[in-house]
């Protein structure tokens, strides 16, 4: 009888129980849960590695379109750097708008990747296994883009290196009191450590791919795998290092978006200098990030035929996570906006009325519908969470809502300083729009190309998870159970 997890036969070789009812239950469990549905490791690897090399027409079309948009981004940036920042719609009141909105948004969606691969690993949420690497790749590319955003919005970008602390003859150092300097240390730490974290996780899978590939792929993987064999020493060191990274990158993750929020909270701009910005931004980041990961998951599942790996249970779990984050985000948002409603400080009242009944009202209400109404109305239902198109639709709306939220905070609120003579409205012009489209395209392009170069599902984590999972029989029913083999 194959109820208890035991070390007697390989997990993927276990027979069904003789009793037909129990067998039906086991079959249902296997269908629903990836980690109960063990297959031989060779098959699992083939499911991941096989589709990588099969590039269809859609892939090439996507490559051309996304590559074109990325090239447009770079060309527009060059044009703007040459002509001056005046080609944008920025003005003397609203000195920050489009690029900072993008900056906050992309750092935000990067947080979900880290949370899923690091925080859920620490908390031992096993269902994260197939999602973690796709989420990390989103983090890496989103952070790369976010890193360029402050450069794009600088007036003299060719002198950007003055913001770096390097010893020089004139002993000119950057200002450690400036939130921009904190940004740079935090994002640099987060970006490099996320990339290293992802690389460490990929190593054993690249070793697998190295053995199975041929031609230029084999050469590439041989170099990237650094000679990984999988000895017990290597695994132990990898486990320790991954633990250090997981525990280390979680506080960094929290600190990064908090530091980004301090770009706003350290100012005297009404609507910005709110002390709740720190946690508010972190939760907003997770919220939009989890939505983005859902979208990426759905696209990769379709493009690489990963139906075996990304099952209803994963989308269900992510949907629940999205709902919980929606509550948390609303809690912080309500906290922030209760104040101007309650005590009628003049300038805050002006801004608040702008959102509720002024020219920004359509944006504000769209945001409320996309971030609150629709997720709260739909994500309760298991049917919606399990239906991939529905969940992706909700996640897309969340992206729209969170982008509008960042836009309202940065571009709209900044137009209303204390002196009414200086009130202004920001109207985006073509360079900002092209650059924004371009960076979105770059992130998608990066993940697309990366998913074809390295295994986007962690094979070794999935197989390890399958080895450690088991079933338990209680009476006439069989349930999936987790064995704590540690």
């Amino acid at each position, binding site marked *: 009888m194959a109820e208890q997890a035991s*070390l007697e*036969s*390989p997990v993927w070789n276990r027979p069904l129980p003789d009793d037909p009812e129990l067998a039906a239950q086991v079959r249902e469990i296997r269908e629903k849960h990836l980690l109960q549905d063990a297959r*031989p*490791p*060779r098959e699992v*690897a083939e499911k991941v590695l096989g589709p990588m090399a099969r590039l269809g027409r859609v892939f090439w079309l996507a490559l051309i379109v996304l590559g074109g948009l990325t090239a447009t981004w770079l060309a527009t940036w060059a044009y703007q750097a040459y002509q001056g920042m005046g080609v944008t719609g920025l003005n003397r009141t609203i000195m920050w708008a489009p690029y900072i909105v993008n900056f906050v948004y992309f750092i935000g969606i990067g947080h979900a990747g880290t949370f899923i691969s690091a925080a859920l690993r620490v908390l031992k949420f096993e269902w994260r296994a197939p999602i973690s690497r796709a989420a990390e790749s989103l983090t890496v590319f989103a952070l790369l883009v976010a890193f360029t955003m402050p450069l794009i919005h600088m007036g003299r970008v060719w002198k950007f290196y003055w913001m770096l602390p*390097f*010893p*020089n*003859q004139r*002993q*000119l*150092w950057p*200002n*450690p*009191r400036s939130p921009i300097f*904190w940004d740079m*240390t*935090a994002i*640099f*730490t987060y970006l*490099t*450590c996320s990339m*290293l*974290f992802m690389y*460490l996780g990929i190593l*054993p899978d690249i*070793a*697998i791919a190295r*053995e199975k590939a041929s031609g230029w792929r084999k050469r590439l993987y041989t*170099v990237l795998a*650094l*000679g*990984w*064999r*999988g*000895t*017990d*020493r*290597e*695994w*132990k*060191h990898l*486990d*320790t*290092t991954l633990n*250090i*990274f997981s525990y*280390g*990158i979680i*506080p*960094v993750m929290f*600190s990064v978006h908090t*530091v980004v929020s301090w770009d706003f909270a350290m100012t005297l701009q009404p609507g910005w200098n709110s002390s709740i910005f720190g946690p508010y931004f972190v939760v907003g980041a997770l919220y939009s990030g989890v939505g983005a990961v859902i979208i990426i998951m759905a696209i990769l599942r379709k493009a690489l035929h990963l139906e075996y790996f990304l099952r209803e249970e994963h989308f269900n779990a992510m949907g629940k996570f999205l709902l919980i984050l929606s509550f948390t985000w609303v809690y912080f948002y309500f906290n922030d906006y209760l104040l101007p409603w309650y005590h009628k400080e003049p300038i805050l009242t002006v801004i608040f009325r702008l959102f509720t009944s002024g020219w920004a009202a359509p944006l504000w209400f769209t945001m409320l519908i996309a971030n609150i109404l629709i997720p709260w109305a739909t994500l309760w239902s298991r049917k919606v969470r399990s239906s991939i198109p529905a969940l992706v639709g909700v996640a897309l709306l969340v992206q729209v809502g969170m982008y509008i939220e960042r836009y309202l905070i940065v571009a709209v609120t900044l137009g209303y300083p204390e002196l009414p003579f200086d009130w202004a409205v920001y109207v985006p012009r073509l360079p900002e729009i092209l650059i924004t489209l371009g960076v979105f395209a770059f992130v998608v392009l990066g993940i697309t190309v990366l998913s074809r170069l390295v295994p986007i599902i962690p094979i*070794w984590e999935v*197989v*390890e998870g399958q*080895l450690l999972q088991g079933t338990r029989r209680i009476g006439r029913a069989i349930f999936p159970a987790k064995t704590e*083999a540690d």
Partner: protein
Amino acid sequence: MADTQLLGLFNEAASTAEVIERLRRAGLGDEQVSVISSVPYRSRMLRRPEITSRISAVAGIGALVGVVIGLAITFGTYLLNPLPVGGQPQFPIPPTLIVVFEVTMLGMMWAAFGAFLFINRMPVFGQPPFSEDVVDGSIGVLVQAEVSRSAGIERLLREAGASAVERFDSSARANNRTWIKVMGGAGAAVTLALVLVSLLAYDVIKIPFPTNMADTVSIAHLQGPRLAAPAEAVPVQGPVFIAGQPAVPQVASSPSSIQRGQVLFGINCLMCHGEKGQGNGRLATYFNPKPADLTGEKVRAFADSDIFLVISLGRGQMPSLAENLSPTSRWDVINYVRSLQK
């Protein structure tokens, strides 16, 4: 004594644990046996002793280095650039904490990664024992022993249920020497890059690039010969051509003025501009471009006041003659030059 390496491949964890137990009973030490697999197995599952990884200690050291660098960046800046900003104290604590925290985490994680590479001697050069079957789920038990015991060990492995046993001689091992050379080379390259950056930052290698400030329009255009006010301009205090100097009206042309001008020309102008003012004086060969031909089209088109300014302020390589000629004398010279142009 020559060593041989035997790799036994097993299908799953149970038989692997058993064979490891048997090998221990056969007298093989734990350091002679290692397990190769494509997924991690806990040491206790395979009845192996716990391996301690020193990476945590290195990460701790990295964190300390991060703290030191963070404090150096912050306090170093406060000491080296003591610029008062925003009414804040010279040594502010909260920003320091933020920066030190980030750099500490950076140091910790980079050190962990570096330690991971170093402890595993990665990237691994050479061909240490490995089998493709490991990737498909087999668990490999690698035994290193003297050649004399190899037959017995092979028998033991097969009895325990190995699906295959592969032999590797002592040449199948990681090539540490190459690794040291490659890592040393990488370290040298990084150090070289940092040194190069420092040489540039400390102006040892000077890159001559134009600084915008010196080129500023408000100063640069004042350095050339400035145009006199246009004829229609309303003078504030008579014909003032040079700021700060008293206004001197133009001396009308007369034979005596021209005669005085000729004498002064001979003293001050002839050696460069030549006897007839054609730019062929004795010293003309030393100049590039040559001194101007005062009888040419260009100087004919100048207004008298323009020539006055050139004499007073200099132009290009021509020095200012303000010390040599009083303003009235300059007008005399100008009258003489006009007579040359006839």
